């Protein structure tokens, strides 16, 4: 596990969320979700559509306000943290951000860096270095002067990561960063997250593709019906029995020589048949 420069009590986990509940428009979405993050790990959140994966990461990021439960960032109760303090604890990368006209990649990353500034103060030399570092770590310095509106989906996703990196928070949270990307771009983003975690970052990523989750994550957390139902090493958690119970599919996760695949009986099951695998 890589060491991360991390303020606060050394013993406290980076993130400890317990019993998080959220109802949106009267409908309960999260019904008591738990989540832990330790420094230097890459955790993938997986689960079926509508299970509450996005709501969970938005809740622990402070984008939504939990109705119940507690969220502690390095031992600090999130409710008591002000915006700028929270921005130093975690960065949130949405699925796809809007693209304003005439804004270059460097300008967008500069806006990201503004999270570290007091209102109405200017960027310092430190901040300019931070912006360069973020551009370089996300691999976007090559097209830093281009307008956001000219980028491909994969390039834009990297820029979103760069904006998050400019916050220089120890934790980067991303909601399905590869959901709209082609195969090559997905591999690029997966590699990027692995490299960032190798450099000491902690990452929490919502992943739809189970084979991808198993390949990149140190740990997966399974969310179903608003609760976290399992967590652990990917191959130990994503067993055929779990895939049958949570996703209702007859499938098996296979790993060989650093390659992962999901073998699925796409049409193989009769309705109402018990698909519990051996």
């Amino acid at each position, binding site marked *: 596990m890589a060491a991360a420069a991390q303020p606060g009590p050394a013993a406290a986990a980076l993130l400890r969320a317990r019993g998080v509940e959220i109802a949106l428009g009267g409908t309960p979405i999260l019904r008591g979700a738990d989540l832990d993050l330790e420094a230097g790990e890459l955790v993938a959140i997986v689960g079926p559509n509508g299970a509450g994966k996005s709501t969970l990461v938005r809740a622990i990021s402070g*984008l939504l306000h939990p109705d119940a439960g507690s969220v502690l960032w390095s031992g600090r109760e999130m409710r008591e943290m002000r915006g700028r303090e929270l921005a130093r604890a975690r960065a949130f990368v949405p699925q796809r951000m809007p693209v304003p006209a005439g804004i270059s990649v460097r300008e967008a990353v500069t806006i990201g860096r503004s999270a570290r500034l007091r*209102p109405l103060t200017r960027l310092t030399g430190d901040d300019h270095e931070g912006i360069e570092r973020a551009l370089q770590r996300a691999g976007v310095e090559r097209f830093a002067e281009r307008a956001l509106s000219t980028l491909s989906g994969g390039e834009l996703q990297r820029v979103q990561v760069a*904006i998050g990196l400019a916050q220089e928070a120890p934790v980067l949270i991303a909601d399905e960063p590869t959901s709209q990307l082609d195969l090559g771009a997905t591999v690029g983003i997966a590699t990027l997250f692995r490299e960032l975690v190798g450099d000491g970052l902690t990452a929490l990523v919502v992943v739809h593709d189970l084979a991808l989750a198993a390949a990149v994550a140190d740990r997966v957390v399974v969310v179903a019906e608003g609760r976290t139902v399992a967590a652990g090493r990917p191959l130990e958690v994503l067993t055929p029995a779990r895939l049958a119970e949570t996703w209702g599919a007859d499938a098996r996760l296979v790993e060989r020589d650093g390659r992962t695949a999901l073998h699925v009986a796409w049409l193989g099951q009769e309705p109402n048949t018990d698909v519990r695998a051996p």
Partner: protein
Amino acid sequence: MARRTLVLAALLAGLLAAAIASMALGAVKIPIGHVVEILFGGGGNRTEHQIVDTLRLPRTVEAMLVGAALGVAGALLQGALGNPLASPDVIGVTPGAGFGAILIIILLPGSIALLPLAALFFGLLAATLVFLFAWSGRNRGSTGKVVLAGIAMLSLFTAGTTSLLAAFPERAPSAIFFIAGGLTSSGWENLETVWPYLLAGALVAVTLVRPLDRLALGDDVAASLGSRPRLIRLGAGVAAALLAAASAAIAGLLGFLGLVVPHVVRMAGGTSSHTFVVPASALGGAALLTAADTLARTLRAPIEMPVGPFMVILGVPLFLWLLRKAV
């Protein structure tokens, strides 16, 4: 970067030229050299001094402040609502102010001095109602709710104004000038009433520049960076309401300016960054209104054309030309 600096410099030069012309031109032409000397406290003869000090200087300052205020109000609203159609009309301020003014003109013509206050009050009231409705119930503070509540309030106050005019047709002519929008040569009186509102709106606007740039990357990114998207939208609405209501109190209904100027500066500068768009909209709005007011009162002097329609007729071709070139 250079392009933005160039645009800002051009706007500033345009504003200076318009301001000088505004003070030099009119029924009595005053040489530019005299205008400059008078502004610095010397030169000119008595009559020239009097014309500049009591008539043209206040009017020019009003034109610059109202133009800047409306430009900034439009820039704030378009940024905060992420909607290119947003303007002080859309959050109800202009129609509310119009209703307040017509109320005085038609029902209390003897107390015409109350007009700026009534315009201010009803403009802010309309905006307050818009934000109260937009901030209640589900999905509160969303762009869609603000815009729809604003359109509803716009319709309501416009209907109120029309009803008043229809009920008292004999008094309607005196309301036309206010509805068309235009400046008057009434000295410093109006500004003395509304300057605190202009100042408050301008101060809030300055603090919103960076948050609006965050909001341009989406509510999620803004929240990741520690901002509160709904608070930014509320702040922008309050600032725009203050600026636009105070503007209406001085110069009637000039909503077009707030809609168009931010678009023009974005197209000219090639960027939607608020660190550029907000100051450029202030300069551009000030330059446009000052120039339009000067033309409106000198082209067919001594007849003063109402500056609102005049500005629209001047501004639309420029706007369409830029629109054609924009991507």
